[in-house]
């Protein structure tokens, strides 16, 4: 009676392939811009200057690698949690083409200097429209699959997925409002302080709805799969969920402390940022307690390493973030290299670690095989971990050092160091950070090779069966 559902995985595979390609592009450009900060003569042509490349790095990383693999894994997870095939495979194929078109055009237009300058919403209006269409197509597909589901109960991952679908839509549309001058240029609908306030309402909630809820959905799905333990507490998951999506939206102004944004907005942002520790750590504890009695898997199961390491960095990230949201601490580290240290602990240590585990698992499952090499997966793990740690630690150090120099005053109240003195002091860290990028890249290449070989193994197994 219970014939197994046929899942539609072609687009899952397609999105995984392309997200890995865009992720590699992001890392390569990340390395290039980190080299440029140490050796400015590497700004060799207008379209290869730091100012134009940095947004390509962040867009390829967040939209290409991040959102690309979220789409893949949401398709994967949703089908399995609802025990239903994807609502429309055709639509999923179109979504993939449009997605690739959007990311590729983003890279080209940003290199040409077509840039709205609002962080994480740099794309000019025609492309922003394409991105919105991609998102709507994808959301519709996932949501319709959920509506037509065979499994009545909705597991916590589906909650995070649905919140992501709604949240990103609202944020992206509002922050992209503007008046077009022509096809390649528009002016923001908002001015000055208003524009800044809207931007960071968006910016911080891009962190919430892109770099937090999707990896959490993925984490909540794959941790029980990988370990064989059910999630520790469904109820804790639910409480954490609602408080998380409630609180995040109040915190945008912690990016704008000490600026002309009204004081009370800053204070509210600071307070809510600190309260955010609770729901964030709700997820962390849920992860840890799920491991109860099975901690030996940290050694025996390579996927557990990625997942538990990832949730640990999420935990650290959500302690460090609220700290940065406190006025006095912000006064110190805001604008410095400390912040890229924070960013990459989250992006590399949390988001990417969870994605690596999920992709390994899903690729093997979809190909009805085992991973090609656990040893290589281990090598991959250590390389990306070491790369990321060097990145973050050097940047935190650089940030603290530069901040203390920038704030140092003489007895008469005048500044002790010129700007350039503070900058010369951090050049060694810039060089170390560039080196960490190469270590990370090596890890990424091992990952790609391992995934590729797993695919090969899968298809040869198929031909044997046939």
């Amino acid at each position, binding site marked *: 009676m219970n014939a197994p559902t046929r899942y539609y995985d072609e687009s899952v595979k397609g999105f995984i392939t392309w997200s890995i390609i865009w992720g590699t592009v992001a890392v390569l450009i990340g390395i290039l811009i980190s080299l440029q900060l140490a050796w400015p003569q590497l700004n060799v042509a207008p379209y290869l200057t730091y100012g134009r490349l940095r947004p390509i790095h962040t867009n390829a990383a967040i939209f290409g690698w991040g959102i690309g693999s979220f789409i893949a894994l949401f398709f994967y997870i949703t089908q399995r949690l609802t025990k239903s095939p994807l609502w429309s495979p055709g639509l999923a194929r179109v979504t993939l083409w449009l997605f690739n078109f959007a990311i590729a055009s983003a890279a080209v237009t940003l290199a040409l200097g077509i840039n709205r300058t609002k962080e994480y919403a740099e794309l000019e209006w025609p492309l922003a429209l394409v991105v919105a269409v991609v998102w709507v197509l994808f959301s519709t597909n996932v949501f319709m699959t959920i509506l037509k589901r065979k499994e009545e109960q909705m597991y916590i991952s589906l909650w995070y997925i*649905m919140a992501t679908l709604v949240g990103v839509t609202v944020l992206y549309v509002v922050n992209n409002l503007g008046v077009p001058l022509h096809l390649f240029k528009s002016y923001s609908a908002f001015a000055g302080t208003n524009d800044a306030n809207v931007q960071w309402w968006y910016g911080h909630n891009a962190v919430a709805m892109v770099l937090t809820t999707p990896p959490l959905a993925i984490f909540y799905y794959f941790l029980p799969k990988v370990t064989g333990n059910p999630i520790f507490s469904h109820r804790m998951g639910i409480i954490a969920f609602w408080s998380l999506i409630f*609180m995040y939206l109040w915190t945008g102004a912690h990016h704008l402390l000490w600026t002309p944004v009204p004081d009370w907005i800053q204070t509210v942002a600071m307070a809510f940022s600190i309260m955010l520790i609770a729901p964030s750590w709700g997820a962390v504890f849920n992860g840890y307690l799920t491991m109860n009695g099975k901690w030996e898997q940290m050694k025996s199961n390579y996927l557990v390493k990625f997942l538990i390491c990832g949730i640990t960095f999420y935990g650290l990230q959500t302690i460090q973030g609220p700290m940065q949201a406190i006025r006095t601490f912000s006064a110190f580290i805001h604008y410095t290299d400390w912040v890229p240290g924070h960013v990459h602990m989250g992006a590399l240590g949390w988001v990417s670690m969870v994605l690596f585990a999920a992709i390994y698992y899903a690729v093997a499952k979809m190909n009805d095989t085992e991973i090609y090499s656990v040893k290589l997966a281990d090598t991959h793990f250590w390389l990306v971990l070491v790369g990321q740690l060097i990145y973050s630690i050097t940047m935190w150090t650089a940030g603290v050092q530069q901040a203390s120099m920038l704030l140092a005053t003489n007895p008469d109240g*005048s500044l002790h160091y010129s700007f350039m003195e503070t900058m010369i002091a951090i*050049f060694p860290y810039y060089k170390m950070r560039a080196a960490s990028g190469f270590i990370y890249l090596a890890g990424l290449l091992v990952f790609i090779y391992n995934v590729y070989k797993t695919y090969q193994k899968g298809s040869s197994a198929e031909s044997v069966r046939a």
Partner: protein
Amino acid sequence: MLEKNPVIFIILAFVVIMIGTTVTMIAPFKWINGPNDRIAEVKPYTPLQQEGRDIYMREGCNNCHSQTVRTLAADVERYGYGGGYSKSGEFVYDRPHLWGSRRTGPDLAHIGLKYPDQKGMWHRKHMENPQSVVPASNMPAYAFLNEPLDTTYSERKMKLLKFPYSQADLDELKGKTEMDAIIAYMRKLGTDIPIKKAEAGQQASVSKNNPFSDLKAVKADALSIYAKDCASCHGDKREGTLGPALTGSSKTDAELFAIISKGIEANGMPSFGGSLDEQKIWKLVTLIKLGKQND
């Protein structure tokens, strides 16, 4: 029930998201940029300045430069240039805002006050080759901006942004390069706000007598102030680059004091009366009068 009904779930999630959004993002539109925020002296951009601003966006200068002087004492001291901290009213014509989130380079909110030179000589030299002015800088060279400015949309931009403009403003665009435009924008930043120039003027009249007659006693201090504030225009060894050489001078101590304190802004010599106290200026005067090239 929630766990079974995705439609109700989505609606509820939307409502939850909109609470914080309404309070901290939508409601503030009621007073931000309102009459209380306005500063009468702050004027919209001219067509040339707006073109410069668009080039600033195109080149992504905001990835390395912030444009807000925070209310912190150290920020005001380093980046205020006499204009104090940034106020909301300074930005009412900025669409989008360009506050930035990183200071790989210095804040530029009031950069027009730091380099008042009408011809923008310092900027030109610096933009074409930053390392020729500040050797350890990691700013990219922007010599490629020495290209004719495309003015096809200049007038439309003014209309779209509802900025007033005259025919003279449009004529100003003729024959200009992209470099001219970005320099015009740099020179505008911060210069509209009413600043405490008077203070600088007063200081100059406080004292006419140089308290230092011995170079040895002040040399170390003077050289360190010089390296921070003057070397980028007068050369590392005071040999003169953008500004004239400062090794020995026929001017009197009082004249030199007045120049350093008030500046010769039209010609590109900034005023330092707001940022350096009297003692420091006298030390510099002593260095200029008595110092030799290899000191």
